[in-house]
């Protein structure tokens, strides 16, 4: 059974229909990459899964349970974390407060905390600094750290490499590969090289519909298909 199963999901934002027909099976384990041009509906898909936009009823199932229409907080408590495109860092809070807020009981589990600080040593260094003062890469690390400080089954990550320096992107890829050993990641990405490196399964969204779904290995080999689905000139 798929971890996340989306059937004919439609989402309207105001009077605009953004997602027309998203049908997607995300298997458990590894990184599932969602590709697509700007404005295709990738972010809206993640936000609809998270309940931040309300999709049509009966379309999103997580471990077999229908989560469509649940409150965002209840969806999160089922074990889904969300790292939005703007990272959603609380700038007025310290790094420590950002992380402690994400724990379910307000206390760190030493094992998980050690894992986070091993993956992102920079965070420890800025532990008591207010988060607005971090660099873009450090904020992204904090956003991902916040998603894994509690055990989760699925992490939705929206364009984590946007605006980051190549060296930080490398470190991020290593961290994601490590996280994906224990947690499924649904990754929205424009940076195809990054996506190729991490992804096992993938799908392409075009104009609010799933235009292609398959394995990353096959897609990476098929240059004409990439051009047709992703290039701006098409």
């Amino acid at each position, binding site marked *: 059974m798929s971890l996340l199963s989306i059937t004919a999901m439609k989402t309207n934002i105001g009077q605009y229909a953004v997602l027309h027909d998203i049908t997607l099976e995300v298997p458990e384990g590894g990184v599932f990459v969602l590709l697509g041009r700007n404005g295709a509906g990738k972010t809206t898909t993640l936000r609809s899964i*998270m309940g*931040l936009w309300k999709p049509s009823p009966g379309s999103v199932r997580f471990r077999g349970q229908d989560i469509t229409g649940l409150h*965002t*907080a209840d969806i999160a408590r089922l074990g889904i974390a*969300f790292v*939005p495109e703007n990272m959603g860092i*609380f*700038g007025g*809070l310290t790094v420590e407060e950002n992380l402690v807020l994400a724990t379910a009981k307000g206390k760190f589990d030493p094992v998980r905390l050690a894992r986070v600080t091993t993956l992102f040593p920079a965070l420890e260094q800025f532990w008591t600094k207010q988060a607005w003062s971090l660099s873009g890469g450090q904020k992204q690390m904090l956003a991902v750290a916040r998603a894994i400080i509690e055990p989760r089954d699925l992490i939705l990550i929206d364009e984590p490499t946007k605006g980051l320096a190549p060296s930080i992107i490398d470190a991020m890829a290593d961290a994601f590969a490590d996280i994906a050993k224990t947690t499924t990641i649904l990754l929205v990405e424009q940076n195809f090289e990054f996506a190729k490196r991490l992804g096992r399964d993938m799908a392409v969204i075009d104009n609010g519909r799933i235009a292609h779904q398959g394995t990353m290995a096959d897609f990476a080999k098929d240059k004409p298909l990439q051009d047709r689905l992703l290039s701006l000139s098409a």
Partner: protein
Amino acid sequence: MNNLTKIITRFGGVNLLPVAVAAVAFVLIGAPSSWVTLTVAGLAMGMMIFLMASGLSLVFGLMDVMNFGHSAFVSFGAFVAASVLSWLGGWLGADSILLNVLALFLAISAAVLFGLIAGWFFETVIIRPVYKDHLRQILITMGALIVAEQMILALWGGTPMSVPRPQFLEGAIILGDVSIEVYRIFAFSLGLAVYIGLYLVLNRTRIGLLIRAGVENREMVESLGFRIDRLFIGVFMLGSALAAMGGAMWAGYETLISPSLGGELMIIVFIVVIIGGLGSIEGTLLGAILVGLMGNYVGFLAPKMALASNMILMMAILLWRPSGLRPAIK
């Protein structure tokens, strides 16, 4: 210039504004004794306005809810406290300081209790159906304010009501040629205690952490698994209770109150919340102290300008810092 900015930032930055205002006023007023009296009056007034404004600021910061009906809690707080004080009139004149304090405590508690219950009712019945719709929020909360004022008229009548004060808060302390009203010291101390309490809750507890994070980014707090809407009703009740407490204090300060009291204070409360920066308790305190001092100094120096002075202050601050002096980071 850069060095000067650094020094100012190091010694408190915008927090120094009230000190600067007081210093300028000292030069303009000339007589030190009048200056001390006016400063104490300004601080006391500022603290009472802080009580009324803090809830409004948090409510707006956390849920983007514009509550123009907030001043109804101020008015009701004033009248509830005044009624309790009248009923306990016998205790107020008594020599026993215990009875005095007890009467005062009961009056303020009654106002706070009323604020909590009315806040719960107001949030559930009036605010909840209009989350995320600013136009309707303004219309329905304005309407609620009118209904509330009429209810006060119906319950307490249209004639101004005089508010008896406990014996121990009457009179003044004389230091040299400076006289300081006892009630003002009491108002200032109570406001300061509430501020410290709020500060500790917001900065030292998990609920406070959730509120601060929610003011910055509600969606993200919900994505981490917390129901901000359930937290919000608590914040709304607390804000209403503080407004009622501010009203109760104001009633004792004015000693003669009329049903339009809340509406009149509302303009000042909004000015304070705006210049302080929405969603921030520190900003609200700073704004309230500034407005309190400004109102008293200008009222002494150029009485005709008293009303306009706060508007001018708001315009000047907004031109300088469009999101207020110490806004919550968004």
